């Protein structure tokens, strides 16, 4: 077993323990953004794809490198943007109260401004 492998395994185990410790404290409310954030973190495989992709010198190598870069980039960019979009929706207080709707007779009421949160969130995805 090489020194490099021993070092790598040590780092893996320690990082796993740190992960368990840190993530165990995340409240259930944030579990979806947490998973999405974790998703974007494993997008680091993009760095791996770049590092090995540069050695490509034949068609098979180029195709594999292209697909790996494509997958990893989609993973990392999409992951961070969608996590940011979700976290932006978590507010301590409800935003400014909607204008008081006039009392209408009982009937199928239409929820006020259903798309309000959606558009503001979509406009704020950060470019990565």
């Amino acid at each position, binding site marked *: 077993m090489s020194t490099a492998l021993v070092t*790598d395994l040590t780092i*893996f185990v320690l*990082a*796993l323990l*740190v992960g368990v410790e840190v*993530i165990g404290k*995340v*409240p*259930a*409310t*944030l*579990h*979806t*953004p947490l*998973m999405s*954030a*974790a*998703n*974007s*973190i494993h*997008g*680091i495989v993009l*760095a791996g*794809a*770049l*590092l*090995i*992709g*540069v*050695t*490509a010198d034949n068609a098979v*190598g*180029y195709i594999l*490198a*292209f697909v790996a*870069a*494509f*997958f990893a*980039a*989609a993973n990392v*960019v*999409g*992951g961070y943007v*969608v*996590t*940011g979009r*979700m976290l932006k929706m*978590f*507010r301590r207080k*409800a935003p400014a*109260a909607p204008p008081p*709707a006039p*009392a*209408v007779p009982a009937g*199928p*009421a239409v*929820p*006020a401004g259903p798309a309000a949160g959606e558009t503001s*969130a979509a406009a704020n995805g950060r470019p*990565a």
Partner: protein
Amino acid sequence: MTSFAAVIQLVYVLAAACFVIGLHLMNSPATARRGNQVSTAGMVVAVAATLVLLIHDGTVTAAGWIVLICGALAGSAVGLYSARTVQMTAMPQLVSMFNAVGGGAAALVGIYDYIHTEPLPGGVLGTTTVATLLDAIIGAVTLSGSIVAAGKLQGVITGQPVVFRGSRLINVALGVIIIGTAAFMLGTASLPALLVVVLASLAFGVMMVLPIGGADMPVVISLLNAFTGTAVAMAGIVIDNWALIVAGALVGASGGILTKLMADAMNRSLANIIVGGFGTGDSVVAVAGPGGDAQVKSIQADDAAIQLAYASKVIIVPGYGLAAAQAQHAVAELASVLEDRGVEVSYAIHPVAGRMPGHMNVLLAEANVPYPQLKEMEEINPEFARTDVSLVIGANDVTNPAARRAGTAISGMPILDVDQSRSVIVIKRSMGTGYAGIDNELYTDPKTSMYFADAKSALGALTAAVKTLVA
């Protein structure tokens, strides 16, 4: 190690530190956004350092740059587009697809490394490392499994457990092929053998997820998330890159914890979930509860509105049916009308209320529900006894008191103690059963009133009735 390489390595350590701090900041909704920014910064630094390293080494051919840049740009565009346009109800599918591409990329890194180093003098010719094998196997299983999971969530593939005669035999055969070929490769390096391992792993991923039912999706997504992380860490070991190892281990830990939380929330073991969905086993014999044929009390909007409007404390219990009916905004509006009258409103969120861990919280946050109102099961359960009205919308099995007795399909599953509140209103389209396929004893409880309607129209009617009746 040259000093240049050492600097790059230190930058990777910095990036890894950013990932850890970013995850740490997610321990509260107040700091979570900053956490995501810190994590993003770490990622930008890591990718930038990689590019600097490549330029410095000058080994990249022009064709290589074009391939990598085109791939990365196209991938970024797809990722950005899907992240910006996805509906919050479709979040589990998207996360599943990100698991798929992450696992796929990790597997490709391992495979590519193998192809590339095999013919080199002093390369892996002769043996194969365990890390390469694990990377290829786990990455491939994640890729195909996540695509099937996303298909099930999207409704492209049936959400019902798909179990056919001989499927277990196929799984065993695939497992034997994978392990056998991998064992052979440890002694003799062989590219065709790696191909066999990858193909068998892809097939295994499909076979693993097909028999899993829709209600078990939170567990499956978490598990595949853990797989992706592990695959990335293995890819990191293959190419000896610390950033990949740390990031992969963090994701593996996250996915592992969530998998356990979700499985516990359903009181089912991982093995049980993977072997087959609810309602497919024949080992469970239903034990009739007290008053098995009790009458169901039905209620209309006006009466329900009066109950809610004159309550001092109301707990809303949302289930996936709420999201399926796209009624998140309608429920938030009803809650805000009630709060304007001074009613204390909170939401009881069961861990498996949505299609992935924490899904319901995101759906309600999108409908502008302030997060302090979203209560976890352990936090809210003691409060039911002090609650005037519990409003159950689209939740079923997680409110069934039968779980407290032995001998039912859901025995031992942690539930929300809805039946301890003074009165209960259930909005539901019919008396149909939930995923567990058993009657909900809450519905026949004398203090429960059933409001038979579609969630969205019912909530609209309730809101309007509260406004007019008690204005």
